[in-house]
């Protein structure tokens, strides 16, 4: 038994739903009690889908237990087939139905439906959402895909995009375009966008592009074994990774990796002088392993940040995550407990967080700006505009998304210049447009965090469901306990500030003052200095100068 206040991943059957909802012509009959239908709203609200997920829930009740839950399942499966006429059906159990052991696969098989029926066995009490999606896609491919003659022209399949995926819609479009530049057509993109009939012709592709290892790797390995299709290992997120990906594809196909990079702007945007201020900004990364590993490379080598912490919530990818972290001299944080992540972020005191929607909220609480790089998704992660993470356009999107939460270069310079100005005084906050007075000294309130939700407190903060009213997100958010704000080096009673030093500290621009305070206190504590003078402050400044 493990106490969980919030979870990064849903249960396994939600993973299966992501596969089913992404596909067409497939229906999922889920043995489940009432209430499990909540998962529908993830798709209809967060992703704004105009169709119900293709899922039939058997809705058994307490009085059915030990009586005829098996018949209930059979009736539901038969009715779903008659009503929706799918090309294929997947059947399985949610956590509760797993306990009553009705064997949905066997029951559905006994119905003799005229379509393929694929049984899912997704252990609810030991695995989670990504596993559920990966295994469901694997079972569908296993049941339907066969070796067959290759297409005349070089084609590939794109693997791993699902419903409710982080920017999957646009990544598929961008990678399709990128491969098109090399002269490669996409045979099937699956699960998202594919029908069971499409799955049966996956064997015709020359190779597979694994977009999302979390949800497609087992299928990719299966196709490699049975259809002799190699699959790509580089996930094309970032400029360097995209170029590496093109070289990897070139190695598989013999085509040239040189493509037109006209639309790629990240390298110059990063090299131009306004971006100088980005040098060495401390970033903390957390999310799914694939996105975090890719983001760390971009941060360190394409934008010039310093990676001060990284980790993932999906334990299945702990090993590559640890290896990647080691390259930055870090110990990876592998956990699905957000309080541990919050503590690690507070400890690392980064200037920017790259994380999930949960880290965005952690950033709000700690006063640290955040850009979102990974699932779990939120209604904001389905923008109306085209905004992939992959390929060259993805790199452009990433530059903008990560940089905008920070105070811009020229802006930072002006704030320093006018620091005691009547408009740029401390209480005015990061914007002189008012309404933000009363900022805290520590932790550093570095920036005007663009809060897309300002003015729309009903904007489904964190899941899409909550309307305004007495339980609106702002109303129900807990008051932050002062004890949770990291103070000083390690929460210990720190050295005392002399009045002169305190006054001098106030002259330092507010958005770096928190860091100056912490560094000075740490410097003093490390040296056993109990009273901080102006000299201590500047000695610390020199010590930490870079």
């Amino acid at each position, binding site marked *: 038994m493990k*106490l969980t206040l919030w979870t990064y991943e849903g249960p396994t059957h939600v993973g299966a739903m992501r596969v089913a909802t992404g596909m067409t012509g497939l229906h999922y009959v889920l043995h489940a009690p009432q209430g499990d239908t909540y998962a529908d709203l993830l798709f*209809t609200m967060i992703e704004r889908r105009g169709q119900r997920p293709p899922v*039939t829930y058997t809705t058994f009740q307490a009085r059915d237990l030990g009586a005829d839950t098996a018949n209930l399942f059979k009736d539901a499966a038969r009715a779903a087939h008659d009503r929706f006429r799918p090309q294929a059906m997947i059947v399985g159990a949610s956590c509760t139905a797993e306990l009553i052991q009705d064997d949905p696969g066997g029951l559905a098989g006994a119905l003799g439906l005229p379509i393929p029926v694929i049984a899912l066995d997704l252990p609810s009490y030991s695995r989670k959402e990504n596993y559920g999606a990966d295994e469901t896609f694997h079972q569908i491919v296993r049941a339907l895909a066969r070796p067959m003659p290759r297409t005349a022209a070089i084609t590939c399949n794109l693997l791993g995009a699902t419903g409710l995926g982080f920017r999957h819609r646009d990544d598929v479009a961008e990678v399709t375009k990128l491969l098109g530049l090399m002269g490669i057509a996409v045979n099937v993109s699956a699960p998202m966008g594919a029908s069971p009939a499409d799955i049966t012709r996956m064997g015709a592709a020359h190779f597979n592009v694994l977009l999302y290892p979390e949800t497609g790797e087992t299928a990719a390995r299966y196709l490699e074994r049975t259809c002799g299709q190699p699959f790509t290992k580089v996930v094309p997120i970032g400029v360097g990774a995209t170029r590496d990906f093109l070289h990897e594809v070139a190695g598989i196909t013999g085509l040239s990796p040189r493509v037109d990079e006209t639309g790629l702007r990240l390298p110059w945007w990063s090299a131009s002088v306004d971006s100088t201020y980005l040098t060495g900004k401390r970033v903390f990364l957390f999310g799914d392993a694939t996105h975090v590993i890719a983001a760390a490379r971009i941060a360190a080598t394409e934008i010039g940040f310093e990676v001060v912490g990284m980790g993932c919530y999906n334990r299945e990818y702990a090993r590559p995550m640890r290896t990647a972290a080691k390259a930055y001299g870090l110990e990876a944080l592998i956990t699905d407990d957000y309080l541990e992540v919050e503590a690690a972020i507070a400890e690392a005191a980064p200037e920017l967080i790259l994380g999930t929607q949960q880290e965005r909220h952690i950033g709000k609480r700690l006063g640290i700006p955040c850009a979102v790089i990974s699932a779990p998704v*939120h209604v904001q992660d389905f923008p109306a505009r085209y905004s992939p993470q992959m390929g060259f356009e993805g790199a452009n999107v990433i530059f903008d998304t990560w940089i905008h939460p920070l105070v811009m270069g020229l802006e930072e310079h002006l704030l320093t210049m006018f620091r005691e100005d009547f408009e740029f005084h401390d209480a005015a906050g990061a914007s002189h447009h008012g309404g933000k007075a009363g900022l805290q000294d520590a932790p550093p309130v570095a920036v005007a965090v663009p809060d897309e939700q300002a003015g729309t407190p009903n904007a489904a903060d964190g899941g899409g469901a909550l309307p305004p009213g*007495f339980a609106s997100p702002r109303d129900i958010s807990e008051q932050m306990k002062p004890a949770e704000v990291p103070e000083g080096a390690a929460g210990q009673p720190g050295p005392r500030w002399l009045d002169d030093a305190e006054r001098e500290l106030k002259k330092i621009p507010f958005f770096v003052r928190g860091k100056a305070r912490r560094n000075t206190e740490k410097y003093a504590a490390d040296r056993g200095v109990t009273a901080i003078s102006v000299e201590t402050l500047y000695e610390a400044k020199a010590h930490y100068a870079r």
Partner: protein
Amino acid sequence: MSLDLTAPATATRGCRETPVLKERGQREVFCGLTGIIWLHRKMQDAFFLVVGSRTCAHLLQAAAGVMIFAEPRFGTAILEEKDLAGLADANAELDREVARLLERRPDIRQLFLVGSCPSEVIKLDLARAAERLSARNAPHVRVYSYSGSGIETTFTQGEDACLAAMVPSLAQTDARELMLVGALPDVVEDQMVDLLQKLGVGPLRLLPARRSADLPAVGPNTVFALTQPFLGDTHAALQRRGARHVAAPFPFGEEGTTAWLQAIAREFGVDQARFDAVTAAPRARARKAVAAHAGTLAGKSIFFFPDSQLEIPLARFLARECGMTPLEVGTPFLHRELLGPDLDLLPEGPVLSEGQDVDLQLDRQAAAAPDLTICGLGLANPLESRGFTTKWAIELVFSPVHFYEQAGDLAALFSRPLRRKAILTAGGSA
């Protein structure tokens, strides 16, 4: 300005005798765990510990958007494979998790162990666990248990189960007091208390109370009024403690609020002049506020998918005060005794349905082609995409909608989607 609701305002009969279409199939509704989202805000020193699966935790965060909490006062003790192997171990694990939780959160005075589908199926006895843990943590923390499982409860029934679980341990009293039952937003609760005090009714007691120290006592001279229609088990539990229920329509809209107050006033012998003096101004305000929306709503048809058990009182309000025509009023469970006064007032005509078979009901909805459809979040966008105008049912539960000052807000929840549909010119389907 006396009130005479028994003489029908129109020639139509009410719905008390209308046969009910009972459905048994796929339900597109939340389970009772969802009630935790508003109950934990109401009870400020309570923690709700669901003993369940990752699905339960995921449901709560999806329904509540809980990412915004620094550390919420609810959580899920997620069962793992080893807990399923042996119940003795599961109990030991539960005790350990509770001990750890209470140590971390010394501000907690009430702990609710909330049963889920998996805990019910493996027959984990949370009532016994609550007794054991209550004894261990007395007097600082009282531990209760109830089931919010989807195999036993639908959405708002979770609040009913929670309040009913508190009733047996309420202190005994012989005082004549009015207990007001049902979790309301603080602002609405304050208005209710103010109105009743002006009528001279009292002493007033609230269930649930904001803090455990303020929990009411109960006994043979307790009279209670329900503010929510879904409190059937709590109603029965209070009657078992000797308390007596004041039956009335539920306090939605000007008419419902007046009838609800009138029933209490009659019970406490408030004279009509005083009643009129206290209610005249807010009644006029409520009518005026509703009238601002009635223009949009009058003559429009409405179809309710089952959700919160508020459907019948709301259909009554929309039909009588806003001029709408209910086509089908679906409710997860129809408690005839509690809803009798509302059924009497709901004009004859709509199909009344109880339970759900969502595919069949979607067929009926499409055939009825209502101007406005009230449904859950799983159905709203798919219906909008097909050209229907919808209102999220969950907002009716989470928003302040009771009593006079919210009557206009309640009407606005229904008129806004219609007005919005009329404003937008760019079209739009998924």
